[in-house]
């Protein structure tokens, strides 16, 4: 009995080790999540504005017939990485003149309002997804996630996790270039 018990820690460690080895696969990127949405029309959704905020709400109709590609960012005030990402998205709006829409995921309106008041509000429109229903439509796996949507409403790119750090920003900008939202060759 004691002999078997003594092997349990080793067995557990071996299982952990197996998962770690799998996790280190160089092709695996914790932020790269395949999405069935890519090259598909953006899902149907219609979200009201955040209560008490002047920024208008967001629906599928706002994602079609735009002049160029737009960014749709899913965020929440309770999400710490969103805070880190916020400044980078703001810069893209201010410096690169990109259009940014937001989906405020499962967030209390007063918390979201406070958060935006504190960090600034770079979003053109924000839909308040209190129930998480639109999140399901978009196939969210967590917050934050950021999508690039083409002028005709087609989802072109999905980024899971915060767009933070040189590598992530470079990948995101490259996707923006491919979508035609940024002129080519600016990727620094």
């Amino acid at each position, binding site marked *: 009995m004691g002999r078997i018990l003594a092997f349990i820690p080793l067995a557990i460690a071996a299982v952990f*080790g197996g998962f*770690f080895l799998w*996790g280190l696969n160089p092709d695996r990127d914790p932020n790269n999540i395949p999405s069935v949405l890519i090259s598909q029309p953006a899902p149907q959704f219609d979200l009201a504005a955040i209560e008490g905020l002047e920024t208008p709400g967001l629906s599928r109709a706002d994602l079609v017939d735009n002049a160029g590609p737009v960014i749709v960012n899913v965020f929440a005030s309770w999400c710490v990485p969103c805070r880190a990402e916020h400044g980078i998205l703001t810069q893209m709006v201010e410096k690169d003149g990109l259009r940014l829409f937001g989906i405020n995921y499962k967030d209390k309106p007063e918390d979201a309002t406070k958060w935006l*008041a504190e960090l*600034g509000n770079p979003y053109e429109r924000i839909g308040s997804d209190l129930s998480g229903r639109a999140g399901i439509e978009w196939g969210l*796996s*967590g917050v934050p996630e950021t999508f690039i949507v083409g002028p005709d409403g087609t989802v072109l790119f999905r980024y899971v996790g915060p767009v933070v750090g040189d590598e992530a920003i470079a990948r995101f900008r490259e996707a923006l270039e491919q979508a035609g939202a940024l002129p080519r060759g600016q990727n620094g």
Partner: protein
Amino acid sequence: MVRTAQSGEFIEGVDDQMTPEVGHFALALALALALVQSVLPILGAKRRNILWMQSARWSAFGQVLFVTVAFLALMQAFITSDFTVKNVVENSNSLKPMLYKVAGTWGSHEGSLLLWTLILTVFGAAVALFGSNIPQALKARTLSVQAWISVGFLTFMLFTSNPFDRVFPPPSDGQDLNPLLQDVGLAMHPPLLYFGYVGFSIVFSFAVAALIEGRVDAAWARWVRPWTLAAWMSLTAGIALGSWWAYYELGWGGWWFWDPVENVSFMPWLMGTALLHSAIVTEKRDAFKSWTILLAILTFSLSLLGTFVVRSGLLTSVHAFAVDPERGLYILGLLAVSIGGSLALFAWRAPMMEPGGLFKPISREAGLLVNNLILTTATGVVLFGTLYPLFYEAMTGGEKLSVGPPFFNAAFIPVMLPLVFAMGCGPFLSWKRADLPGVLQRLRFVALLAVLGTLAVWYLAEGGPVLGYLSLMLAFWLFMATVREWTMRIKLFEGPVSTSWRRASNLPRSAHGMTLAHAGLAVAMFGFIGSTVWKSEEIMFVQPGADISIGGFDVRFNGVERVRGPNYFADRGELTVSRDGKYLTDLFPERRTYPVAQSTTTESAIRSTLAGDLYASIANPASEDASTQGAWTLRILYEPLVNFIWIGSAMLVLGGGLSLSDRRLRVGAPRRKAAVTARVPAE
């Protein structure tokens, strides 16, 4: 070329330009010594060759010397802003204040790894220096095991993460350290955290050496306990400092986020706390032996796991180092050898260990067993929550999710609350067999006080969650039960004060230490609860001249001015705080912009008192339309009792220190009983 005083103190007669190569070479020499130390002493212990065993002493000193030379060489490169060194280019800037140039030495992956290795060798040398009471063979084996870890980390550094790599042509200035990291709290945070993390390495080495020797007894536990305590104290201080840093510097208005990187420092703490208590049973009652050994192995394994998670990019976190799969693979190999090897050794040897002293279900031993089981469960919860995203992804073939504070709060807190209850009773229980009804009778008054205290808070505060009040009641319970136990021991109020004084000074310091640390946890709990349950927050657009009232304070916003610092400029808000019309203080929150690193940081201004913190931060207006012209975004928080967290943490560390200074651990070398008598359970 003869060196000037500035850097020539470290390596005399070497050209300034050569210092990085000297550092690199010193690392190679340290590796050579570590290789010798991993083989010679342990062979000596087997063959009873005293000379071979004694060689460990000198190779341990040599290792620490050479790694120190390497560390100082890197520090010199940072201090003199030597931009031919890649690591300096990536993490420093000539305009950075001197303190942060020095701290930049351990701000990067390579530099922090060098610090890791330095502390590893320091602990090895400390055992060689202060371990004169430890039997020669055990010491030799322990130092050999410690050298195996050294070899692992030195090769890791030399082969994948050389901190002395050069760049050519050298750039004219560096990219600067992440401004968030430019803070006094952070300059001190990694060294303390690493002293804790890595300090457990020596306990691990002791455990593996004991398994190889096939012998664990009360004397072994007594030799190991001071090292465990020292590491635990540093880890406690390191975690508290990191949390303090997040709270004061990052301006996030919180002190714990259940981020993977926070969790991996918390798990060794939980496990180390269990080990600390389990080792007491091994020392006093010769029981829990295999359990203590297992905890020693697991505590350091969790430290290694932390290093792996932070540096491999396995999980997403806000504060991970630059990601490199090759490095990840190397550390995983290191983990497989050290954790796998030690656990295999455990599986082989542990069943051969003699079971120790017997005890009844109600006894000090049983109480400490409960402590161990709860702490281990809590560690399991944190481990599971931290790694669940990875498991889920692997099992579902690529689907991802994240685990956040709601899980940890819901799973961790209910596990820990029974521990707090048990902590109140535990010290009253006697060894072997205790009288629970008697103990509970003595604690009736404490329970009554805890209920009354909670009711008083319920009356004063306006509402709050039930879990908050339950936690509060347990915090009161723990604090008063701890104080009650102490007053009973010294018979305070039961006779003349002089008698109590004499009893107090005769009480071992470890007993005072326990009282202080247990009370410290209760005090910290008041902080956790107060600042979580009764926090108030206001965020608003304000024009100069605006008045805000929060938590009973009146705050007036006077305006903003532009100020300059050495490598940044800032918008500084001016706030006047008063209460009931009486002026209290001025607050100056800043929004700093670092032009070189191209980033901004929030410097919050805080009025800190025991009752709570008034915390203000400022940001630029959200958008420039007519309604917000000339307005600023002001965020004001009132966090009641938050300073109790740091006071409680300090009490934990001091309690550990008091216990560490106990006579029993310092002098009077515990003698190992002859092998025959050691087999007989005590009494």
